[in-house]
């Protein structure tokens, strides 16, 4: 596929820089960075649906949970190896995501948001009620850790490295997806649903694939989350927790770009941590920030950066002739 070389190279450089920083971090920063990386996986894959296809799903947090519980069950109860459980969880979440999508895409706009909200709430309730599998409100205790990778570092460093590579893979996959014919069709759906249909674009296939793509990586992120935490509880996957969080990350980072959500995930995970002391006000700041972004900067941080870069370039271009 043409045009993929540049994102591949750039992302490789960023990944290498991030990996090089790993040995410098203490346990706490490693944990926060690991969380940020998992949220980046969620956000990038979610943006394929929200930013590129134009559908607001609030069921993403529940799908994250499906991946987490699936991996927890496979590794703790069925004693499957983590490296097998990871793709299995992602696949199962993708299948469940496909079912949800078939249901949800009967509607659009607010109906779609409310329907996925309902599905997200049912999912959260099911994690609570199906206590035989999930451990119920008390949570799933005793999830085995990731097998140690003998080559390097402490367990916490290995977790972060795996999570960072996960972000990288997600980013590349999402880039490939949005540039594929399916991804182009998704963007046509976003721009004009009716026109896209009239032009003979198979919108059903396009948006379904965007949803399933998001679900697959949400499942993978969930599996990593479960293994890294050794414990998961339903409240992490509530609509108003992960389900809403991922929307904020994408909006603040920049809908419709794939690196924006990564920035959003990193900044919005780091910011509350650095504001820990003043956290009574941090949720207020969180809401105000989201409001300010959607009103004044609907393209997010990425929008700022793109505009800034363009201005810089045109300023330079303007100066060149006179030089």
């Amino acid at each position, binding site marked *: 596929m043409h045009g993929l070389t540049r994102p591949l190279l750039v992302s490789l450089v960023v990944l290498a820089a991030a990996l090089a920083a790993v040995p410098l971090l203490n346990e*706490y920063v490693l944990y*926060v960075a690991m969380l940020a990386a998992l949220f980046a996986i969620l956000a990038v894959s979610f943006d394929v649906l929200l930013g590129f296809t134009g559908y607001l799903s609030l069921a993403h947090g529940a799908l994250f949970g499906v991946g987490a519980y699936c991996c927890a069950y496979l590794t703790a109860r069925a004693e499957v190896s983590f490296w097998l459980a990871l793709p299995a969880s992602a696949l199962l979440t993708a299948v469940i995501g496909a079912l949800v999508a078939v249901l949800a895409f009967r509607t659009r706009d607010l109906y779609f948001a409310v329907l996925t909200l309902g599905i997200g709430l049912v999912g959260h309730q099911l994690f609570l009620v199906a206590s035989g599998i999930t451990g119920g*409100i*008390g*949570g799933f205790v005793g999830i085995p850790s990731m097998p140690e990778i003998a080559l390097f570092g402490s367990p916490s460093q290995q977790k972060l490295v795996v999570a960072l590579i996960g972000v990288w893979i997600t980013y590349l996959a999402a880039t490939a997806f949005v540039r594929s014919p399916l991804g182009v069709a998704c963007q046509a759906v976003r721009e004009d649903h009716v026109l896209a249909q009239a032009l003979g674009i198979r919108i059903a296939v396009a948006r379904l694939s965007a949803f399933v793509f998001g679900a697959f990586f949400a499942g993978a992120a969930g599996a990593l989350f479960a293994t890294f935490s050794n*414990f998961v*509880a339903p409240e992490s996957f509530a609509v108003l927790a992960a389900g809403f969080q991922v929307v904020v990350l994408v909006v603040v980072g920049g809908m419709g770009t794939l690196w924006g959500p990564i920035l959003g995930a990193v900044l919005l995970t780091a910011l509350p941590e650095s504001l*820990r002391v003043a*956290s009574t006000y941090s949720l207020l700041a969180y809401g105000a920030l989201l409001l300010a972004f959607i009103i004044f900067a609907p393209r997010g941080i990425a929008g700022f950066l793109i505009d800034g870069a363009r201005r810089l370039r045109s300023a330079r271009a303007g100066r060149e002739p006179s030089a």
Partner: protein
Amino acid sequence: MTRKHLLAAAVAAAIAGQAGAAETVRIGELHPITGPASYYGLPESQAIRLAAEQINAAGGLDIGGETRMIEIVSGDTQASPTGGVAALRKLMADGVQIIIGPLSSGVAPALTPIIASADVVQIVDGSIAEGLTDGRRMFRNQATVGDYNLALERLAKARGYDSVAIMTDRFHAGFMESQDDLTAVFSEQGNAVVAEEYYKLGDTDFSGQLTTIAGADPDALIVRGYPSEGALITRQVRDLGYEGQIVWEMVSPPSTVMKNIDAATMEGVLNAIPPTTEDYLNLGNPRAIAMAEAYEATYGSVPGELAALSFDALHIVAAAIEKAGSIEPADIAGAMATLTAAEVPALINTYGAQEDGRLFDETGQVSLPGAVSVWQGEGWVPLTDLAAD
């Protein structure tokens, strides 16, 4: 003191000397000090700070002959597992090796795997979920939900209830986990469980469940959860015409209860839990009164129901440090395991001694037996004779 201990103390003193005489003992506390759960978490955090200030004002800790002050480092769990883990990791990265907390049963199991594999000693002062302690590095001076249920089970047996209905907050991890055990004991004792209904924190309308319960008309209705909902349930089930005995199993400050129900409707409701700060105040416990007065003077509010547990937790840690003559987690844990209540004179709660007089059992758990109190007038009064009406 053995030679090894002397050596350890000397090394510790040398390290402390290197770092300057003002070196403090850093103790971390993990509670939800922001967000909705801060209503319970903040008083716990403040009680710990109060206890530390009092110890410091009295001259600090005597560690193997050397005097050191306590420094409390707060970590905000925000009552969420990831928030709790991040806060714990932050404390540990800051070099804190002694942890008090957490409050939430949803947070505690997320911390356990980290603490189990780190050089840290922990004392839980809030969560009542089963497990959580190992007697090696993890201790708890709060009751377990099993202790909570014990009083309930004894009450049901003594009163000879033929039929009971149970209403449980399904967002309460401890109560949900112990639901099956409780009903099993009831059935064994001949207290037939005729209805098991659920609700969740924040619910306001319980009419569907309560109509069923009132229809079954059991001898006793047991409500397990938090007092806001408990009061609403009590009021609504009475409105529906239920006249049997209502028994609560919840930490329920009369101030919260009275906001949601009138005193006449509450009259005669029983509550089966270990004594709370307020109970010790009512019983005239001098240490509880002193703590409450100091707390009000410092923070301008009354201490929460769980403040006495947090206050005790810090004193247990302080006593263990002095007994060990060391601030190494392994030494503190070792001292804690053999600590007796007599060695911690500041304790407010009345802990049941283990067989050999120690405070903690083999698994690091105190014995804090539940008691039954009855609502009279505008508050709880201890019930001395379970069988009597």
